[in-house]
């Protein structure tokens, strides 16, 4: 049908037209949509993204590449050193490959696609990652040079478990939210690898390798479960020791009166965590489709739940299938603080979180912002699942 619209993923904006409305705003071929999206003053500065969101066609359009990055200015207020580093925007998308034809074999060789699988999935890989539309491009980084890499996984269903050879990622922000936004005393976190489910983002400081050392950004093999798609290891980019001409532009100045953090009291977090869940999301699937709380989404549905704005809520998202599902909700971030009933050592603020096979995650939803009032959505961000029903409406009142 080729109907289309836009979703502004991760922004704390209104779900009503003409803003982040993917329910009533829809353009058929020949039609136009006019968006005016009011970015709030307290939007966490970082990496977000836009992509199309027409129910039933989201997967194909996102696979084709209808996506792009959004950067909200001001992240240097949290980690000042990044303003002196060269910034790289990396948008990960897919290229479809065949199975046994020589052209596909050549592509798989080029990206060192691993034939070793880490999952119980028996299918052959059908897609590989591109970076800004190129297959295994090179990034110029001189020895010891620090760069600020802002990476969005815009694939409709590939996970990216990112690692850089021989070094740790110095993570500054996840899903657009600087780590310092809620934890001013803790602006960076080191990790050997970071899992980006489809729609996930990471912003990290990378250091150029020693002379002669090969360094690549790669995704590790990720186990998507016995009913999941293969998600093998492959190389995304190589770092090459080349001096890039041109100076680093200064950051766009932002209003210094803007709120810079939203620290939450440990007592508040503890109260939400120790409460029984306010709402349950159950992901299930069968041969006929994909479901939330046994319901397959239809655009005419009433809201599955209604929330009065003004409080933090405890949600538990449960996966009753044999494959992973990334949970996403529009308009807000949430604190992921437990997985399979075990408290995380490092709770994370995200807008998209992986829910493990036959497992669950506990979330503290930030429903405090009056700006988000209206009809919104939450869904699985494997977009073919969303297209086939794994989505539901939420009314913010």
């Amino acid at each position: 049908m080729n109907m289309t619209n836009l979703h502004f993923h991760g922004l704390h904006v209104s779900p009503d037209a003409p803003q982040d409305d993917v329910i009533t705003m829809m353009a058929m071929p020949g039609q136009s949509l006019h968006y005016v999206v009011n970015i709030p003053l307290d939007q966490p500065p970082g990496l977000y993204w836009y992509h199309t969101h027409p129910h039933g066609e989201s997967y194909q359009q996102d696979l084709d590449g209808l996506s792009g990055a959004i950067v909200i200015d001001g992240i240097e207020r949290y980690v000042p050193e990044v303003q002196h580093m060269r910034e790289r925007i990396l948008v990960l998308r897919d290229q479809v490959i065949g199975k046994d034809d020589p052209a596909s074999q050549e592509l798989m060789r080029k990206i060192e696609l691993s034939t070793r699988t880490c999952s119980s999935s028996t299918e052959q890989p059908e897609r590989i990652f591109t970076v800004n539309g190129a297959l295994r491009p090179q990034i110029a980084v001189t020895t010891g040079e620090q760069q600020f890499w802002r990476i969005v996984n815009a694939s409709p269903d590939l996970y990216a478990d990112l690692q850089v050879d021989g070094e740790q990622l110095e993570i500054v922000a996840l899903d657009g939210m600087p780590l310092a936004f809620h934890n001013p005393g803790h602006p960076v976190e080191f990790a050997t690898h970071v899992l980006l489910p489809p729609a996930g983002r990471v912003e990290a400081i990378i250091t150029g390798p020693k002379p002669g050392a090969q360094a690549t950004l790669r995704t590790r093999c990720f186990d998507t479960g016995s009913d999941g798609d293969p998600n093998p290891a492959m190389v995304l980019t190589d770092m090459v020791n080349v001096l890039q001409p041109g100076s680093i532009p200064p950051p766009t100045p932002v209003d210094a009166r803007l709120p810079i953090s939203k620290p939450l009291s440990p007592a508040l977090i503890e109260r939400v965590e120790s409460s029984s869940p306010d709402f349950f999301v159950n992901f299930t699937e069968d041969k006929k489709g994909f479901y939330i709380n046994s319901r397959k989404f239809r655009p005419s549905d009433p809201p599955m739940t209604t929330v009065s704005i003004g409080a933090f809520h405890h949600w538990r998202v449960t996966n009753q299938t044999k494959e992973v599902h990334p949970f996403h909700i529009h308009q807000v971030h949430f604190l992921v603080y437990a997985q399979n009933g075990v408290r995380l050592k490092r709770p994370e603020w995200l807008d998209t979180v992986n829910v493990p096979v036959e497992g669950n995650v506990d979330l503290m939803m930030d429903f405090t912002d009056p700006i988000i009032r209206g009809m919104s959505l939450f869904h699985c961000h494997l977009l073919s699942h969303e297209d086939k029903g794994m989505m539901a409406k939420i009314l913010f009142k």
Partner: protein
Amino acid sequence: MISTRTSLRRMISFACAMCIAILGNMQMTAQVSTDSPQTSISPLLSNPPDTRSPIDLTAINDPNTGKAAFSFNGREDPPVIRAKPGEDIRLTYVNAMSTESHERCIDGHA
């Protein structure tokens, strides 16, 4: 993943995949011939174009592949949208895609 597609649809998808793979290979061959030998065959990563509000974005079908694509300033290169907190993003989005599904095009029968 549990598939609800029919076998016919699978065959069409396979044909699409073959077609895309061949096109992908053609692009790669082109890169080989234009790159200097010192930097191997891969291109240097380029950042996408930057833009700020107001923005005009168009969804099209690529004339060669039939695949959906964002067209921005006449190129199929989706921009990075930059905005300050407190600003409005004004964006006009035009759907200039075909009324027919592009899968027929890639299948070679459109």
